[in-house]
């Protein structure tokens, strides 16, 4: 159930190319949330007797059992994220309301997670919670502009070592030489080539709008039905 509360910024990680992760310490334990849910972050002060200020949505990248610390990752893309880049610093306070959203991976099915850039944060909490005994197949296709911007790759590698159910492939649009990343964007044709029995899995897509549109269209053309396609499309 959504709650509004103050958070202190405890750390900011700069990943390059204006991509940042922010660690937030809630003034009280954050409400329960599910992997894939998101929060609203407001930079301006909120008077609880007044209207909620301008805010933006960010996937909660941290795991549901880490309610004393929350993590988000963002790329500077507009006015609000520019303000975040300028104004956020360790020690400063922001207002959060959370949790929201229904982009929740159904772990009872075989799933294929398609993540572009910071969109991967919609899946990181789910991946963190994967157990070694998870009985279903989990595919992750994770792409970014360059291998350096696959900022959650270390987490994916750790989970992959622990859980044989997880098969991950990485993509980068540039600088792939000498890496194990496939060159270019995630494409439906590649996904279908790498996932066995591809019509039996449910696809979850989180990333930039053009990636979502291309993959939705490409997967649909290959016979993936609406019931097997879940997208995390924000405005």
């Amino acid at each position: 159930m959504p709650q509004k509360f103050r958070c202190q910024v405890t750390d900011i990680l700069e990943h390059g190319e204006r991509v940042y992760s922010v660690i937030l310490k809630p003034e009280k334990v954050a409400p329960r949330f599910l992997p894939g849910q998101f929060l609203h972050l407001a930079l301006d002060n909120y008077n609880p007797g007044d209207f909620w200020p301008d805010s933006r949505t960010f996937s909660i990248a941290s795991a549901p059992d880490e309610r004393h610390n929350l993590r988000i990752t963002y790329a500077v893309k507009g006015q609000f994220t520019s303000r975040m880049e300028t104004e956020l610093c360790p020690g400063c306070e922001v207002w959060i309301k959370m949790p929201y959203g229904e982009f929740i991976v159904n772990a009872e099915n075989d799933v294929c997670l398609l993540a572009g850039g910071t969109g991967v944060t919609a899946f990181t909490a789910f991946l963190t919670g994967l157990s070694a005994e998870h009985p279903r197949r989990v595919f992750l296709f994770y792409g970014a502009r360059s291998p350096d911007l696959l900022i959650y790759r270390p987490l994916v590698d750790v989970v992959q070592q622990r859980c044989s159910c997880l098969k991950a492939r990485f993509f980068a649009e540039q600088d792939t030489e000498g890496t194990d990343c496939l060159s270019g964007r995630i494409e439906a044709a590649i996904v279908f080539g790498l996932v066995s029995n591809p019509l039996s899995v449910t696809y979850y897509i989180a990333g930039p709008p053009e990636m979502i549109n291309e993959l939705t269209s490409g997967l649909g053309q290959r016979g993936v039905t609406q019931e097997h396609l879940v997208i995390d499309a924000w405005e």
Partner: protein
Amino acid sequence: MKRDALLRAKILKLVEEYYQERFAGRSFDPEKDTVHVAGRVFDAEELIKLVDSSLDFFLTANRYSDQFEAEFSEYFGLSNAYLVNSGSSANLAALTALTSPKLGERRLRPGDEVVTVAAGFPTTVTPILQNRLVPVFLDVNMGDYTVISSRIEEAIGPKTRLIAMAHTMGVPFDLDTVMRLAKAHNLWVVEDNCDALGSRYRGQLTGTFGDIATVSFYPAHHITMGEGGCVLTGDDLLGRILRSLRDWGRDCYCAGGENNTCGKRFSQQFGTLPHGYDHKYVYSHIGYNLKVTDMQAAVGVAQFRKLEDFISRRKVNFQKLYALLEAYQDRLILPHATPNADPSWFGFVLTVRDGAGFTRNELTSFLEANRIETRNLFSGNLLRQPAFMDIEHRVVGDLTNTDLITGRTFFIGVYPGIDDSQLEYIGSTFARFMRGERVV
């Protein structure tokens, strides 16, 4: 401090003074005061929060509603608590939620049967009828006034989809049996917890066993916000459905005064609406407006802090009344809890025994004439009420005890506003009646 904040602090200080002047320090005068069956129990904090909220002038649900819902859901350990404008509305939302198309094959459909009891408050049953479901009535035990659980299995037929009953007068019904049968027959369970806030069964709070629970905050109840109620669930899908039903049936879950909480306000497809139709005005349920104001919630926040104290005072009053009245057990059936239950008592229920030498109305008339309020056990046998006589229903077994309750049962108060002097007065008044005094 800014001037508006200074003025607010000054006003709230005056409110505290007003409370002291207007309400504090009252004592019971047996010569002229009434022993109420229930009522508001409050101190300056309720008034201060009420005025504080009014000074926000947000009016609709806001910070106090958020706070109450968060604290209340934490208390129950359930992920969803939604304030509504009454316990009856909570029941309406709960039953209607189970008819939602979002539940797929598990949704209730017209004609499906609901196992319940006929002795209780009508709005436990009315949402069954309002949703074109069919109530199947069972009889209740004397003394605890909850369902005779050995009959539930017999009531379950091919159309049975739900068990919806109240923890009557704070007494938990046999949750072992109900939950076992619900699991075995894949039934939904709605706990009408309106009279039982703080009751426990095997140490666990009632309201946390079934799929949905309801609570009332009418002044007669354990805590109050005037008019108010709450509907709770640990199931997030049911939570979204309940919220939608409460908020006009809309799909959007923005709180009042908020926009684009989902981040997809103008980019989704619903029904045959144009793509990107404003999500604020997309309706996925035939809903209601059951919301509270923030002023109601503000009172609720202050009341909730007193809940544990209220519960323990109710229990103490119950024990003291029991001690005062147990000498009359040859003429009265005294209340008791079901096995494994620790009730947060709503009232002290008494049934006049066959051959007592007096009728219920002779006793209640005497008590009322001596300013001790009494109440019948709500509707008695609901099927004898004018509005319910022609409803579609089934009765499994008989309703012998339910009819006895209709004719012989009533209750008096145990609420925290009753102090030792009032209890003493109740005891002496009963003694006068039992010695043969009557209203002339």
